[in-house]
């Protein structure tokens, strides 16, 4: 009876180790980093436009559940972006020619982001997160990992101002596509925002109306 129990517990322990190693991230070697960056850069050069749905989970430690919102996004290279929440409320933000246009449930506002360094950084960060093209060693300390299914690039801002807002950005790239499938924005408090992209369409037709609020 003791023998069976010991085998049983050993099996559980082994299973636990295997399960955790699936979620565990391994650091990429120098060669792997080069291959990965080259794969993403090549892919992002071919992306003229990107349409995708997304689900956003906002985790705050003191809440019982994550706050879930969802919507869609349209991107046109190099720097046009419309990020639109549709559920549970309507809110969209368009980044266009240095200006930011917001439509918050019918309340519209616009402001000039150019010349404002903080906004320019955030603008670049969002577009970079979406396109995967943000390997800027001047702006971020970057480290590279992989798990069972994804490459994971982690970006820590070097700018003090940006660090106050975001402590770390994680981008997840499936092995077979080199296109960002998930973004995780970590705050220094431990809270985070996780955005999962679904139904991605590369180089689908986009029009100017996709970037008007």
């Amino acid at each position, binding site marked *: 009876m003791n023998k069976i129990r010991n085998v049983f517990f050993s099996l559980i322990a082994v299973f636990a180790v295997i399960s955790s190693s699936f979620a565990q991230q391994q650091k990429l070697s120098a060669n792997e980093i080069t291959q990965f960056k080259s794969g993403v850069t090549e892919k992002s050069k071919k992306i003229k436009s990107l349409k995708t749905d997304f689900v*956003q989970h*906002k985790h*705050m430690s*003191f*809440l*019982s*559940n994550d*706050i879930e*919102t969802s919507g869609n996004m349209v991107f046109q290279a190099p720097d046009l972006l419309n990020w639109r*929440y549709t559920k*549970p*409320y309507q*809110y969209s*933000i368009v980044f266009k020619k240095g200006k930011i246009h*917001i439509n*918050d*449930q019918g*309340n519209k*506002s616009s402001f000039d982001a150019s010349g404002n360094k903080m906004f320019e950084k955030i603008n670049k960060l969002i577009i970079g997160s979406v396109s995967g093209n943000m390997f800027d060693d001047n702006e971020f300390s970057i480290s590279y990992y992989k798990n069972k299914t994804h490459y994971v690039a982690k970006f820590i801002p070097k700018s003090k101002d940006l660090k*106050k*807002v*975001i402590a770390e950005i994680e981008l997840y790239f499936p092995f077979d596509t080199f296109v960002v499938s998930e973004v995780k*924005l970590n*705050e220094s*408090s431990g*809270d985070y*925002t996780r955005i999962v992209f679904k139904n991605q369409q590369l180089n689908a037709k986009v029009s100017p109306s996709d970037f008007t609020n």
Partner: protein
Amino acid sequence: MQKSVLRILLISLTLIWTGCGVYQPENAELTTTTISEYSNPYFSDTTKDYVYKANMEIYGRNLGGIVVIKKINEDIHRVVFATDFGNKLLDFEISSDSFKVNFFVDGMDNKRFLKALEDDFRMLLQPVYAINKTFVGKNEIIYGSEQNSGNIYLFENKEDKFLYKMIFARKSKEKITFEFQNKKDTFAEHIGIIHHNMPFTIQLTKI
């Protein structure tokens, strides 16, 4: 000459006296107070996350985002203002006698703005009000409680017994109105906080 001076003095005194009067709810009569305290039904469940889409208008500026409220324990609520993307802008904990700011971004630490938020959310989240006056109107019962050097009046609908409005008044003037649209007990569908002495309103819509 003396009579006209006296007349002017009397009229002035009357006006001053009226101005110093205490606010009384309209179309309601004072009655016997039969309860010593009133439990605030809103934000009273520690297991619930009260998440709202927020819209603030302050001195002509429109600010939108999310407000999250959580009852931490019997006395304390935690309140977080965040952008629609989820970035925290302001994080504080509040009770009837404390206000602790955990986090703020630049621009959210204006003292007057924080004081207004502290006063508003203290009244909004207060678990229990000590009642010292009661009024009866056609469709409502109104309970009065001394608060913050003034009085807060809690309007309860006679039919469904929901708290649908609160008015904070000092002397004879309404200062702040809280309006609740509700379908369930602790989670109001919509809340409006309207200041009457400065251009500041907060609209919260349940999400």
